[in-house]
């Protein structure tokens, strides 16, 4: 469900929106040495959500990024280790190779990209620095683009020659390499008065291994070999057809029947069934997505005052007890079939990943003792109360998500045993995950006790941790509901650590700062990190060459895929 909403501005970060796999390296379809790649053939890839558009500026669906990136490339991408790789640039600029120059006062910076020469778009037109500049201009001018984060930090772009781009940033913007991971073709796009309404939206031009030849809404999207692709002998496949199917169950049925050779996004609960099939291989890849339960520390009421105190959850003893009464390992084993890992932070991958002490484990006895000690007394019905306040709470998550509903049942049972009542009050994702103050998202308005959902930070976690944990980011009537700090926790330690992380380009220092922030969040017991998820895709066993990527969708190396004879 979560993946419905996860979307990314940049290609490589169109992260396979799930998270952490059990262990080890991402799965791959790399065959034994004897099994050399074969050229030719058509692969049908089932997608059970449909891209509405494939044009980079308007992409807001994981599936759209997955499809788009077989044709559309950018300056850089992120490999599975979280390292930036050049794609259409000769190198990823940084301070060491002279590509990034910070001004003397430390307030601005210039980033210079040297582009590969001789690259053409799939229509044969030359790719130049003007395309990069145009991509930025479109981003800043077009009112319908999905986001401008980062691009709005650029003051101007110079293109001294066809293969050099100089970006003048108005600030020291650390995540600069994740910008420009999708590029627009100026010679086509500039002719459109409104790009969003043009054919480019369905069939964007690219420099990648494939080019889009057909977009039949509701049915399929065809990508054929790009004859002008710069890499010799690639792609191996003649064609990839992305087939729109109505549900993941249907995609699985068609995969089993051999009507499709690959599919996207399988739920953990569907894996046991597929693992029995010898003709199917699962691509299980760790992902940055972490499922969380947030505890509202302010009053549960509409447009809650961030300085108010929740009568039950305002007591840190209660919050500790709930953390200790949450059986993460059991959830992972029983409900997620071992395809996830118990969580300890929202940052499970990449250079910024949390490596501090894990969040406290399952210990219901300790939880009971803590509540006894804090003066929460069990009543006749087994539910505790203190000073006339009954320990009765509600939890909200998205309706219709079976795994989440099962997790709620387990939590309700477990919390009952420590004398805390937990009632389930789910809402449709169009409300609960709307992230909209006016649409009444209970997290924004403060009308919840416990919530449950997943988030996926970028490889650079700054925006994520800042908007979700900094005390300035508590949504309230006073700030028109800006920010995603839904626990309403205000901690000077957390604020300070986050600010430190954003103030330097030194990755080592930043990592330490973010780790400090997570540790401080965990010490306040306001978030229960349930589990780190994996992204799971599947292939028929006659497909070779695929490889999972933590920070990207499974199609990131589609040029290497082939059909075995």
């Amino acid at each position, binding site marked *: 469900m979560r993946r419905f909403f996860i979307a*990314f501005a940049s290609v490589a970060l169109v992260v396979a929106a799930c998270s952490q796999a059990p262990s080890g390296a991402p799965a791959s379809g790399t065959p034994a040495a004897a099994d050399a790649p074969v050229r030719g053939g058509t692969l049908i890839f089932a997608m059970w959500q449909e891209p509405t558009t494939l044009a980079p500026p308007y992409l807001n669906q994981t599936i759209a990024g997955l499809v788009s990136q077989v044709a559309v490339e950018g300056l850089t991408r992120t490999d599975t280790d979280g390292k930036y790789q050049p794609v259409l640039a000769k190198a990823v600029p940084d301070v060491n190779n002279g590509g990034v120059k910070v001004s003397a006062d430390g307030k601005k910076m210039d980033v210079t990209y040297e582009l590969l020469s001789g690259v053409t778009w799939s229509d044969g037109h030359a790719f130049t620095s003007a395309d990069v500049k145009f991509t930025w201009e479109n981003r800043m001018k077009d009112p319908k683009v999905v986001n401008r984060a980062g691009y709005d930090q650029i003051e101007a772009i110079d293109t001294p020659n066809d293969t050099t781009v100089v970006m003048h940033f108005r600030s020291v913007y650390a995540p600069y390499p994740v910008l420009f991971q999708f590029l627009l073709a100026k010679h086509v796009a500039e002719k459109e008065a409104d790009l969003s309404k043009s054919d480019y939206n369905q069939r964007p031009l690219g420099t990648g291994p494939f080019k889009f030849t057909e977009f039949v809404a509701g049915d399929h999207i065809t990508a054929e070999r790009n004859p002008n692709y710069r890499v010799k002998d690639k792609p191996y496949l003649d064609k990839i057809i992305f087939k729109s199917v109505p549900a993941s169950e249907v995609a699985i049925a068609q995969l089993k029947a051999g009507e499709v050779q690959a599919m996207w996004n399988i739920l953990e609960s569907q894996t046991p069934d597929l693992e029995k099939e010898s003709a199917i291989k699962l691509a299980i890849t760790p992902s940055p997505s972490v499922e969380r339960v947030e505890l509202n520390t302010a009053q549960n009421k509409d447009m809650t005052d961030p300085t108010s105190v929740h009568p039950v959850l305002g007591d840190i003893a209660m919050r500790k007890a709930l953390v200790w009464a949450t059986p993460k390992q059991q959830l992972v084993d029983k409900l997620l079939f071992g395809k996830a890992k118990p969580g300890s932070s929202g940052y499970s991958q990449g250079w910024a990943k949390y490596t501090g002490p894990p969040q406290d484990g399952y210990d219901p006895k300790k939880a009971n003792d803590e509540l006894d000690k804090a003066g929460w007394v069990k009543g006749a019905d087994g539910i505790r109360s203190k000073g006339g306040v009954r320990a009765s709470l509600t939890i909200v998550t998205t309706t219709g998500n079976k795994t989440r509903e099962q997790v709620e049942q387990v939590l309700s049972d477990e919390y009952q045993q420590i004398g805390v009542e937990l009632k389930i009050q789910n809402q449709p994702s*169009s*409300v609960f995950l709307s*992230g909209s103050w*006016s649409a009444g998202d209970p997290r924004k308005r403060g009308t919840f006790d416990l919530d449950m959902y997943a988030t996926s930070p970028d490889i650079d976690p700054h925006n994520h941790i800042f908007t979700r944990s900094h005390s300035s980011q508590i949504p309230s009537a006073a700030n028109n509901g800006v920010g995603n700090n839904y626990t309403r926790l205000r901690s000077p330690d957390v604020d300070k650590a986050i600010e430190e992380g954003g103030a330097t380009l030194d990755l080592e220092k930043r990592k330490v700062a973010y780790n400090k922030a997570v540790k401080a969040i965990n010490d306040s017991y306001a978030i229960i990190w349930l589990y780190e998820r994996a992204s799971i895709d599947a292939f028929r066993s006659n497909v070779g060459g695929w490889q999972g990527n933590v920070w990207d969708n499974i199609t990131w190396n589609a040029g290497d895929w082939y059909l075995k004879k």
Partner: protein
Amino acid sequence: MITYVLRRLIQAVPLLLGITVVSFAILKAIPGGPMAAYEGNPNITDEDIRRLEHALGLDQPVYIQYLSWLTAFVTGDWGYSYSSHRPVLASIVERLPNTLYLMGTVYVVTLLVAVPIGIFTALRQYSWFDHIVTGTTFAFLSTPTFWLGLLLIIVFGLQLHLLPLGGMATLGTDFDVVDRIRHLILPVATLSLVGIGRYVRFLRASMLETLTQDYLRTARAKGLVERVVVARHALKNASIPLVTVAALDLPELFVGALVTEQIFGWPGMGRLYWDAATRSDYPVIMGFLAVAAALIILANLAADVFYAYLDPRIRYA
């Protein structure tokens, strides 16, 4: 007659207007909205959300939003989808042939099968054939299409491997009539089986009633053979209720079958609406609803006109 039709058409205008007002109001009253799709994108700021709301006109008061939709709509500008940014009219026109193809086949198959069965069961009331048909039609009549469709997929697609699991054609192959027909069988069967049950029930009931009329006794007394009595005298009158039902079903030819198209991954109008509804894509939903409402009003009018043709006693002035 012409004045009657004209008057009805004029009356339809305020009715349509009312329908669009109510639809728009209901859409806006549903919690959530088109911006829900942007949650979870770690790169989207609240500022981006506000900019997009402004670009789509969602920051205007609801009545202004409605009026600007309406003025554009009547001048032929149906707006653009919030999610695909494509013109609404183009999206509808693109799906229409697929739905006509599916629903037209369903319509023809249903009538071709239902009419003879309906007549025959009435003529042989309480025969073993009648009992079997009555039992079967009742069973299918009470079967939801989402269940029947899935059942057919499981049996004929997954277990017997006789028919494809969905879609309009096998992807990656050239046009092939046999392949098209194979893809058509299951969705048509799903919709027809339910529809046949309905039509048979209507026709059987009205045939039974007609067969006991005095004028049929007169016809027989004149010495007409039974075939003529049934086909010429009974059927024409008995088919009036069926014609009404069939005419009222005509809009489905264009509107499609929401659930069945979804189950079989059929790229028709039903799926277009389904997807638009899940995305709160107001312009597409409104365009679709306006078309559907207009068709239903027209179908009602058509049913009334047919009535007059079939039953000379009915006169409109």
